[in-house]
């Protein structure tokens, strides 16, 4: 008996020691939110009245929309007929307004808010990430059809049953996508909200700066190549969204308002049918409740209220300051500094470019000639089979994604485009896959000692 107990005790001690030295994601950095405020020149109200614009824009960003603006406590207007959530801040909330998916998923409550009768899809959970769903392919006879690429957003919910929805707009004329079929056939992918802190700086980086960075990057010894996504109309480099498919914050805002909340606006002027409906029947007239565009310039005022929501959403994101990194948490200053150097040395910074300089700005001084510590090259890179989502957007193929900006990473909960993990280590390992440009860099990370890896993790969580 004793002979058995001793080895067991030794084994448990060894296990404890190994665990003590094993690298772990420190988790979401505590303390107050290190983001969410305005740029310093905006806070200083330079130019005069800009702070009023920011504050008004933030209010609108946080406003809950109802179908026709008739629900008490819900100041917004134009929800649906299909939607993923009911306000911008519902999804862009962590660690502050403008961020990414929060700890408690508001989409569970959105399903039945104000009398709506939506079932909650299996992939939406209270503790999971906010998600939008896309079907890579259309279905033919209930089978995913690779000859019919789709990739559009399939809204989770409809307004059917809501107290402010017409009774004629029922599930017969406004069907929901079959998420069960999509899940059972693997014909579904997810996207989570991208944080918007510092996005005005990203918007104001000139193409020439990005191209120079691209050329410098080609001299790497880690197998990274990369390219850019482009705006189809003028050919310039696009940069917002998981595949860098959107050119500007205003387009980003207008599309999200239309796709995620169902609000037609001056950039996306019609109520949005589902993919497939758009080429056949369009939306049923009984579900097109409001005159369009539902969000528009308001001509009956000379105040800030003149601006449309879409313009103000873009203004809010544009004027949000970038996250403030911690110099000491987690792990202490030495570990964080070491992690930063390791991050560069092993090649992460080839794609996750530490900083880029913005152009002069006519909006506000903080946006001009500024150093944007975004940790992204804003290029799209092949990430291989592990992260591939079989959705093409602009010039990006199924496995190509924009280098995710890492500023603010320390206070994010969910990682990767679909929010599949809360663990930074898992996110790093997901870079290693067949067809990925990051295989060599990821293996360099594997070659580090456990304490070095911990330094890298501490550095990332300090951002």
């Amino acid at each position: 008996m004793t002979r058995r107990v001793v080895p067991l005790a030794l084994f448990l001690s060894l296990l404890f020691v190994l665990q003590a030295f094993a690298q772990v994601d420190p988790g979401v950095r505590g303390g107050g939110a290190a983001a969410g405020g305005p740029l310093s020149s905006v806070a200083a109200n330079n130019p005069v009245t800009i702070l009023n614009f920011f504050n008004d824009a933030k209010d609108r960003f946080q406003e809950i929309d109802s179908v026709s603006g008739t629900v008490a406590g819900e100041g917004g207007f134009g929800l649906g007929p299909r939607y993923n959530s009911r306000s911008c801040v519902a999804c862009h909330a962590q660690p502050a307004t403008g961020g990414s998916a929060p700890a408690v998923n508001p989409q569970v409550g959105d399903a039945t808010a104000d009398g709506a009768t939506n079932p909650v899809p299996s992939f939406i959970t209270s503790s999971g990430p906010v998600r939008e769903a896309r079907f890579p392919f259309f279905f033919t006879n209930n089978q995913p059809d690779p000859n019919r690429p789709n990739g559009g957003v399939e809204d989770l919910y409809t307004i059917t049953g809501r107290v402010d929805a017409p009774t004629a707009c029922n599930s017969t004329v406004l069907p929901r996508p079959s998420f069960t079929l999509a899940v059972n056939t693997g014909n579904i992918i997810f996207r989570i909200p991208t944080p918007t802190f510092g996005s005005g700086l990203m918007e104001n980086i000139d193409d020439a700066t990005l191209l120079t960075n691209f050329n410098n990057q080609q001299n790497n010894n880690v197998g990274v190549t990369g390219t850019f996504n482009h705006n189809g109309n003028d050919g310039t480099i696009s940069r917002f969204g998981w595949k860098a498919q959107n050119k500007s914050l205003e387009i980003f805002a207008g599309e999200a308002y239309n796709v995620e909340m169902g609000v037609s606006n001056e950039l996306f002027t019609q109520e949005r049918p589902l993919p497939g409906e758009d080429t056949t029947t369009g939306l049923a007239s009984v579900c097109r409740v409001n005159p369009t565009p539902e969000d528009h310039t308001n001509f009956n005022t000379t105040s800030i209220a003149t601006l449309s929501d879409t313009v103000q959403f873009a203004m809010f994101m544009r004027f949000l300051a970038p996250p403030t990194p911690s110099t000491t948490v987690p792990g202490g200053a030495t570990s964080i500094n070491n992690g930063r150097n390791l991050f560069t040395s092993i090649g992460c910074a080839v794609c996750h470019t530490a900083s880029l300089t913005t152009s002069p700005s006519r909006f506000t001084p903080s946006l001009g000639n500024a150093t944007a510590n975004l940790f992204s090259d804003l290029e799209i890179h092949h990430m291989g089979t592990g992260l591939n989502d079989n959705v093409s957007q602009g010039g990006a193929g199924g496995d190509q994604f924009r280098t995710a900006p890492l500023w603010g990473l320390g206070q994010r909960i969910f990682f990767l485009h679909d929010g599949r993990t809360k663990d930074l280590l898992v996110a790093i390992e997901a870079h290693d896959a067949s067809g990925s440009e990051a295989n060599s860099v990821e293996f360099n990370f594997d070659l580090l000692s456990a304490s070095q890896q911990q330094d890298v993790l501490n550095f990332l969580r300090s951002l």
Partner: protein
Amino acid sequence: MLRRTAQALVFLSILPIARAQEAGAPDVPLRKLPTDVILVKGAVPSASDTSTPIPEGGVVRKDVYSNDYFGLSYALPAGWFEKYKGPPPSDSGAYVLTMLRPGPTYKGASRGTLLITAQDMFFTPLPGQTAKESIEFTKKTLQADYKVEHAPSEVTVANRSFTRFDYNSPVAGLHWYVLATEVRCHTIRFVFTSPDPALLDTLIRDLDAMKLAEADAPLCMAGYAEKANITYKVDPILTEQKFNAIPVRIIIDKSGKVRHVHVISAFPAQAKAITDAVMTWRFKPYLRDGHAVEVETGILFGAQRAKPVMTAATDNAKRSGD
């Protein structure tokens, strides 16, 4: 690649997982999309025929990496393997030919990797026309995080001239030993990485057994597809502006006909239009020492943002000592 394509083509006929669940749906088995296949691709490589070797066509078979295009054959270190394929070639002509690493059967005490890359010098966005210049540029632009171990120098490996450059990261404790040479107007780099310099020295010593000889390769010449050399030409019509650079390599046979078109990176419709057009082009036969020889050259279609460095017609095969 072929295996994946085949998987993609047959996925609808395999893996029955459930029954259709929609009201009124036919009662047929549902098929699940494969999870490890990229079905929706962006810009990808293609070729006018399957018999002519292409740079990205290398394979690991029986513990040997072989690449017919470059005439490269390299026996993997014991217990190493190619876990994953690299990405498709880029629109600036950069290739990850293979990345090798220790596998589950590896018995060694220290670990490392060998990354073999190629840069098509017709399309490189970097300065430098030779392997040596390319490595010199790497040294010149090496960031402060790294320390030079051995400055670039000429070495002979596998009876071939290479430029070798060693550097390390003191903070990471990793060493990079890089060997570069030129083959068919490409710079081939062998990038060895490990915390253990002794392992790297052993790997480089073993590299001497590698075969790297493009004996029957066409003569590679930058800028040969110029007006003065072309006797017949139809421009491809690219019907959709995608803003991407489209690097293309062609092989012109001894009679001046285009024998092979390799579109390095393009969307499928672009590749078809270019291939169909360029295959009809006719050139003056190129004479070397009075004899007509096959010529390989590059043409850049689409966006011109990746400006080729080698714009003058140069006989790089001669310069690299072939």
